[in-house]
């Protein structure tokens, strides 16, 4: 916050009126439910939902000992790592190439920007259709190569499906940021290295990639957050967590345990764990933004 605002208006009521819509919505639909999640996470309801009692951290110790939840954490970690790695490496390759070409770069940009606008659920459906075991075009190619693809029965196939859909959707975002990062690297550095006889590959690994590390780090955080929290639609619309919980990532499990399993205590405890994870990433991101501003 700026400290030297000497010209600020001094008005008793107006600022509160201006803030009121934002604050009221925030309090009713954000703070209140979050507080409720916090409250429910330390309570247990009886079977009829008529009474509940305070149980300290029983819900947490319960879910953290539950093999289904541990499994879900592992699946989420694999999913987030695979999605981030796939999407970022592919986008970086494209951005490096787009940074090289002068002719047609707008054309490429326009065509690579599309997936950003596609809803996660729709992205999931598109890949689900291409991998459909009986009529999917990719399943057909794999079959010709001798692999019987079936994401409805095979857990790893299902995981590959959601990773590809999630990574595909994120290509645009990563590409745009990598390209902006590449274009902000001073040309003189690269020219100097070229004069010294460094090959394009050597220049990339010794100069460009290290200088790009702030962008890479930022994108890594954004992609992990995306994989953790924005991919509910992909899972829900395609695999529905299956087969046999092989794709039951944490945000899907919170929803499923809460709305389908009606286990509010466990679902609330899961919510609180997810809140801590988001909080952690938000702080990292914010730290990063602040540090960048300094230099």
């Amino acid at each position, binding site marked *: 916050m700026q400290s030297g605002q000497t010209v600020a208006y001094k008005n008793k009521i107006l600022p509160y009126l201006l803030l009121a*819509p934002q604050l009221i919505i925030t309090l009713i639909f954000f703070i209140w439910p979050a507080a409720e999640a916090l409250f429910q996470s330390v309570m247990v309801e009886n079977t009829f939902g008529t009474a509940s009692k305070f149980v300290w951290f029983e819900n947490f110790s319960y879910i953290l000992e539950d093999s289904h939840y541990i499994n879900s954490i592992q699946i989420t970690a694999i999913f987030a790592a695979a999605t981030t790695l796939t999407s970022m490496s592919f986008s970086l390759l494209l951005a490096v190439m787009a940074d090289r070409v002068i002719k047609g770069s707008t054309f490429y940009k326009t065509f690579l920007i599309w997936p950003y606008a596609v809803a996660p659920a729709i992205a999931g459906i598109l890949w689900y259709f291409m991998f459909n075991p009986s009529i999917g075009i990719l399943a057909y190619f794999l079959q010709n190569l001798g692999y019987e693809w079936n994401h409805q029965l095979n857990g790893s196939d299902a995981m590959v499906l959601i990773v590809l859909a999630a990574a595909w959707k994120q290509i645009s975002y990563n590409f745009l940021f990598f390209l902006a990062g590449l274009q902000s690297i001073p040309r003189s550095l690269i020219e100097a290295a070229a004069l010294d006889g460094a090959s394009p590959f050597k220049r990339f690994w010794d100069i460009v990639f290290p200088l790009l590390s702030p962008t890479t780090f930022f994108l890594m955080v954004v992609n992990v957050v995306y994989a953790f929290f924005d991919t509910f639609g992909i899972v829900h619309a395609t695999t529905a967590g299956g087969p046999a919980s092989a794709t039951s990532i944490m945000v899907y499990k919170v929803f499923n345990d809460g709305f389908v399993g009606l286990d509010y205590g466990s679902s609330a405890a899961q919510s609180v764990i997810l809140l801590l994870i988001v909080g952690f990433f938000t702080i990292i991101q914010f730290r990063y933004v602040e540090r960048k501003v300094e230099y």
Partner: protein
Amino acid sequence: MVENRPWLNSLSHFVLFIGVIVVALPIWIAFVASTHPPEALLSSPIPMWPGPDLWKNYSEILSSGISSAGGVSVALMMKNSFIMALFITFGKIAISLLAAFAIVFFDFPFRMMCFWIIFMTLMLPVEVRIVPTYAVVARLDLLNSYVGLTLPLIASATATFLFRQFFMTIPKELIEASKIDGASPMKFFFDILLPLSRTNIAALFVILFIYGWNQYLWPLLITSEDSYATIVMSIQRMVMSAEADPQWHLIMATSILAMLPPVIVVVAMQKVFVKGLVETEK
């Protein structure tokens, strides 16, 4: 260009071309499937080139939807999606502008506290507090209404934060001058601040329209009546019904229609969007 390496230039174009194909393939396959009669999509390999039924398939879903998936017309779903997306977009922009205006240009008690309350929402995405939020909306009797569908999604720390950053770069002389001219704070807001924020508003419009249009989990929970169904959330039900009654030509036509508005917005406003995205989030 640092040096001329023809083979490397060709390689670059080749890689980018492959990239464009990877990005476009799912959309192309969907489009092709949406132009064929159902018989063409019964066994592999399915066609790779558009068929004759484009008009027939699209007019069928727009008017009567898919009967095995509830038979809600896709035109109605798109209308609901537009209402939801536009309400969320303009709502977020409006209340964020006002909130940022108050935080940057006014001096009042609890200013920092208000700022932190708004900022905290960044850490509370719908997905993680889904059950209690649903309970709150149900208690307020807002299920199956446009208000329940949009209002809870309108609070935005990101937009407020963005406008705050931008307002802080506005020279103090402007405010002083407007004060000397005797303009009220709101006159300053409407006559000076709003016009200056045009570019930021346009960039945010793209990002928020896509955000609003693509909402999935929230409408899925809030709307149980078909008359409030949005297109993105309805796809799932169509796919589930496809297990028994494969209507892939119609499902893919719906997917294409669900992608069309946000894709048009992004491509049409590409320049302002790219600039806004890369600058604001960095």
